[in-house]
């Protein structure tokens, strides 16, 4: 039986706006076990990135804030930590890889000094020791000629290489939890595979838990142990990776699965989910997905369903199953 590393309970995150607070996340709950990968999928604007930023306590300031809920990391509630305690945790216990490797590195410093800085802040490494550890990290993420690359600058590296550097930076202090926010979206398909393989092997070797955010279901199939499907700030289906592909239950999940290129046969049109994600200040009454759902019933337009346990390890938020 594996231990739980992080447990998010009823997380509510809001943004201040001129028309009052807007709830971006509404009662998000999930947990990640040690050494496991949770995939979070959903369309743009469904709250995937905000979930990760809430955990990191890096919500866009001054408008974003956590309204209620708990984020228990090894039993400690992250929402209650002071900002300096949080700084000690970031990069050290919880690390993050960003979507855009091209801009996530500081252009005026060499690769080595940027990785070295993290090591200095958290591990108090200096001088030769620091440089050796930096080169070791670069080697670990599969960068050729690490002793040369360490002195190069971000503009001299390709996107895939920079993403490797970002991963090396994120992993340099052996974090327990790695949050990967669409780490492969900005990369070529061939590089994507390499980066995914890399994260996978590092996860196995270092026993790191990963929260993997993506909108690519193929990547989920490759990486995740469990999957949470999000729609408009709520989790609508939460289950294991096998179940999500073999036995999807929520109409939204089914829609997502049907909209993949794999399902397109010759001379066939790509199926898509009709309509658009409603804006957050214009939430439909009842189920958020009711406006686009093909199986919409009367009750769907009236009341929001709960996230219910339908089978062991399979929770769905839909009136079809109650």
């Amino acid at each position, binding site marked *: 039986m594996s231990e739980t590393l992080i447990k998010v309970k009823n997380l509510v995150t809001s943004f201040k706006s001129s028309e009052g607070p807007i709830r971006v996340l509404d009662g998000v709950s999930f947990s990640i076990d040690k050494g496991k990968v949770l995939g979070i999928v959903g369309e743009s604007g469904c709250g995937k990135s905000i979930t990760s930023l809430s955990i*990191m306590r*890096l919500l866009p*300031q*001054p408008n974003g804030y956590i309204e209620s809920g708990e984020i228990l990391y090894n039993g400690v509630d992250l929402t209650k930590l002071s900002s*300096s305690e949080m*700084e*000690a*945790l*970031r*990069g*050290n216990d919880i*690390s*993050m890889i*960003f*979507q*855009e490797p091209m*801009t*996530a*590195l*500081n*252009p*005026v*410093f*060499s690769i080595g000094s940027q990785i070295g*800085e*993290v090591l200095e*802040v*958290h591990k108090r490494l200096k001088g030769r020791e620091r440089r050796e550890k930096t080169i070791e990290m670069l080697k670990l993420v599969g960068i050729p000629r690490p002793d*040369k*690359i360490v*002195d*190069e*600058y971000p*503009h*001299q590296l390709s996107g895939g290489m920079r993403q490797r550097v*970002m991963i090396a*930076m*994120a992993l340099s202090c052996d974090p327990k939890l790695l949050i990967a926010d669409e780490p492969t979206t900005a990369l070529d398909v061939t590089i994507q595979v390499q980066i995914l393989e890399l994260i996978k092997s590092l996860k196995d070797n270092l026993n790191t838990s990963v929260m993997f955010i993506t909108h690519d279901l193929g990547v989920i199939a490759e990486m995740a142990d469990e999957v949470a499907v999000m729609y408009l700030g709520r989790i609508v289906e939460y289950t294991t990776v096998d179940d999500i592909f073999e036995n999807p239950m929520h109409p939204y999940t089914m829609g997502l699965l049907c909209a993949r290129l794999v399902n397109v046969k010759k001379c066939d049109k790509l199926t898509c989910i009709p309509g658009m994600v409603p804006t957050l200040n214009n939430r439909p009454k009842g189920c958020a997905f009711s406006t686009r759902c093909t199986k919409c019933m009367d009750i769907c337009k009236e009341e929001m369903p709960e996230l219910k346990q339908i089978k062991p390890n399979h929770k769905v938020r839909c009136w079809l199953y109650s």
Partner: protein
Amino acid sequence: MSVINEATDKKAILNKKNSSGISPWQIAVKKLKKNKLAMFGLFILGVLALAAIFAPLITSYDRDLINMAKIYEAPSFNHWLGTDELGRDVYTRLVYGTRISLSVGIVSTAVSVIIGVILGAVGGYLGGIVDAIIMRIVDIFMCFPFYLIAIVVAGIFGPSLLILMAIMGILSWPKIARIVRAEVLTLKHREFVEASRALGLNSRKIIFKHIIPNTMAPIIVYATLGIAQGILSEAGLSYLGLGVKQPIPSWGNMLSAAQNFSVLVSQWWLWIPPGIMVLFTVLSINFFGDGLRDALDPKIIQ
């Protein structure tokens, strides 16, 4: 000629192979070296700086040596640029004046850059109430008419070199604070800043180690041009008798000799040389500053 070029090219290629990392600064230096006007400016500035440092070695008279037997002497072999109303050697005073003018320009700019960069960066990064307070202070300082304040302060404390540097530094920091703040506002939303926060760096480290180095290009350009402005202001204030006090020579207070009409007409060697020095120095600095801006701005492709 072509052989030499080929040899240097080969050397350059070899150097490239040996050094694995080319920083953005090295690229800028390369660009700068190709700009002839900027290099000319740098050369003139280098000569002036050397003259200022080694002033005692290249002059044969004492700076303040008064010789009443030789007043208003025209340029001759003994006195290259003649003598002034007290029989002091003009060339000697001009060389020593370089020291004063350059150091006033550099120190006052350094003061304004230090204050401006720190306040601008902190305000821009933290935003909110801190930013509002700093920017209102900037607005207030920008309302002060420079010469009026400088004259009043110099009038109260009496003319002195240190006070002159301090006034000029304190009155000119708001401009650089605005430039830095504007840069920081765009930089703080760049992903590498977010990534640094995600890696657990605190605000102080992010401001000083990640944001300020990225604003260095406009700061350096502003600082060079600020030195030219400082030299001009010093000349202006000294001319009005509110800057550097006699007997210390500066280009400004040497120029004030030309206030006298008979000097203006018949003793040209008292005011033309310091005037030319101011002109050449400011021009060289401006050429160099322009070159720096072109070299440091990646958007300009040569």
